[in-house]
């Protein structure tokens, strides 16, 4: 890559979970102000704002949220360009990429990127409808499919094709809950056992309740800046060295292979190429484990392990603490929580902290290169970023 480089200079997210006393505006303002403070930027410094959110329309009855949220942060009088980005579960990651591109293009020197979802103001049924709106409404959902059911079909195919076991799926949840236990911002901070996962109520076989990310409230925010101004934000910068995004058929039924997400493969290839890194260089990754099976797909499609080896690799600890690449040190979507639009930004926050060396007792040792991987639906959108610590 030639030309301008984007850096993350500020990162923050709210605690994820059930935020009964916070509205979506308050959540976003909390995360936004914390990130701006972390970066040390002033309102006057900001050139542009992006916010990733999947479904404020259905969850809080509000569209047109980018301007509204900027106003909430007290920045309406700056009259900044503010844009909302949506791609189901990948909304946050895509918003982040928009920020990176605004910097790289020269259109902006300082960009604030937020992500949020306020999911607990509505009934379980309405939450499920939102989750399902990331799959094909007319040709999947209407015929009885749910997001979990489609992921269950993927899991069964993966099991049939690669011999992946139920216990290997459970190992993903066990690992991520163990990680989440050390993350003060995580929704679930209690380790669980394999038995807990296996005995949980079924959702769509073979997936049970502990194979699925929870419903969460939360907001996350990062501040990006260009190389032109990065020196003003001394010492805390993390370089965005690669950014890749790709898409695939919305319907799972249109895929020739259910067990690989081509969008992830293409996004990763582009991001690694831009960054000039090889997959062996990656120390830490935040991947999209909306279901246990999706982490297995992610570590395979991102190239951390060979295709089909996601299950054994997880059981052997190759993706855990002290492994070849530490996957989801935050607890992932599974334990940190999954306020949909916030997830992609929270992933960048987590990597930023590890690459700065400030992730306290869950710090990945000597973390230098991190990968963020955020997907939507059954992998119809994937976005991958490579972040590098700046020494």
């Amino acid at each position: 890559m030639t030309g301008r480089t984007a850096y993350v200079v500020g990162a923050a997210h709210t605690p994820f979970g059930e935020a009964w006393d916070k509205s979506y505006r308050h959540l976003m303002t909390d995360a936004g102000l914390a990130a701006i403070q972390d970066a040390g930027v002033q309102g006057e410094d900001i050139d542009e704002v992006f916010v990733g959110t999947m479904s404020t329309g259905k969850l809080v009855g509000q569209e047109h949220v980018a301007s509204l949220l900027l106003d909430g942060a007290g920045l309406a009088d700056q009259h900044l360009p503010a844009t909302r980005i949506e791609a189901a579960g990948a909304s946050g990651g895509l918003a982040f990429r928009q920020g990176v591109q605004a910097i790289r293009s020269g259109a902006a020197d300082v960009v604030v990127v937020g992500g949020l979802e306020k999911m607990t103001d509505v009934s379980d049924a309405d939450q499920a409808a939102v989750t399902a709106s990331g799959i094909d409404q007319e040709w999947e959902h209407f015929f009885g499919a749910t997001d979990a059911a489609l992921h269950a079909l993927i899991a069964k195919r993966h099991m049939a094709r690669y011999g992946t076991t139920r216990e290997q799926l459970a190992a993903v949840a066990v690992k991520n809950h163990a990680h989440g236990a050390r993350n003060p911002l995580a929704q679930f901070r209690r380790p669980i056992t394999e038995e807990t996962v296996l005995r949980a109520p079924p959702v769509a076989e073979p997936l049970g309740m502990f194979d699925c990310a929870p419903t969460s409230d939360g907001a996350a925010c990062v501040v990006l800046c260009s190389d032109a101004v990065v020196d003003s934000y001394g010492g805390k910068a993390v370089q965005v060295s690669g950014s890749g995004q790709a898409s695939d058929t919305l319907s799972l039924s249109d895929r020739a292979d259910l067990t690989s997400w081509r969008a992830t493969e293409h996004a990763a290839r582009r991001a690694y190429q831009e960054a000039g890194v090889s997959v062996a260089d990656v120390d830490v990754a935040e991947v999209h484990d909306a279901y246990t099976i999706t982490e297995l797909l992610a570590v395979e499609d991102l190239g951390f392990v060979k295709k089909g080896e996601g299950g054994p690799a997880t059981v052997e600890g190759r993706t855990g603490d002290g492994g070849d690449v530490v996957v989801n040190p935050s607890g992932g979507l599974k334990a940190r929580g999954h306020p949909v639009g916030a997830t992609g930004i929270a992933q960048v926050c987590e990597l930023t902290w590890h690459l700065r060396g400030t992730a306290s007792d869950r710090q990945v040792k000597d973390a230098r290169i991190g990968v963020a991987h955020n997907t939507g639906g059954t992998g119809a959108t994937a976005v991958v970023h490579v972040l590098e610590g700046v020494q």
Partner: protein
Amino acid sequence: MTVPRFWREIPQRYNLQASKCGACDAIHYPPRTVCPECRRASIGNLEEVKLSGRGTVLESTRVHKAAPGYEAQVPYTLALIQTEEGPVITGQVVDHDGRAVSAGDDVRAVFRRLGEDGDAGVIYYGTKWVLA
């Protein structure tokens, strides 16, 4: 679902109406406006065809947390159906009480209720599948 949204796709839902590319003969369900293989060469060159309703189960799952309207049928079986003409269709396999549904099982299309807009609203009909 809403009435106009359902109504305009009745042929596809009741009778598995698909599209066939005049350039490469590939069949797609739901019907497409452009063939993803032939793209420009297929424009204006797609014809309507009806699928036979015969297929095999590619993969299936028992769903315990239902999609809206399917609550009373929990647990129900959702499958990817490989139709004999080529397209793969997502659908519910019904009436298989006591028999497990497995990849490779032959199925055929049946006509069932898919949902309704509450007690007073329109009833939506369409295709489900039974073991053949």
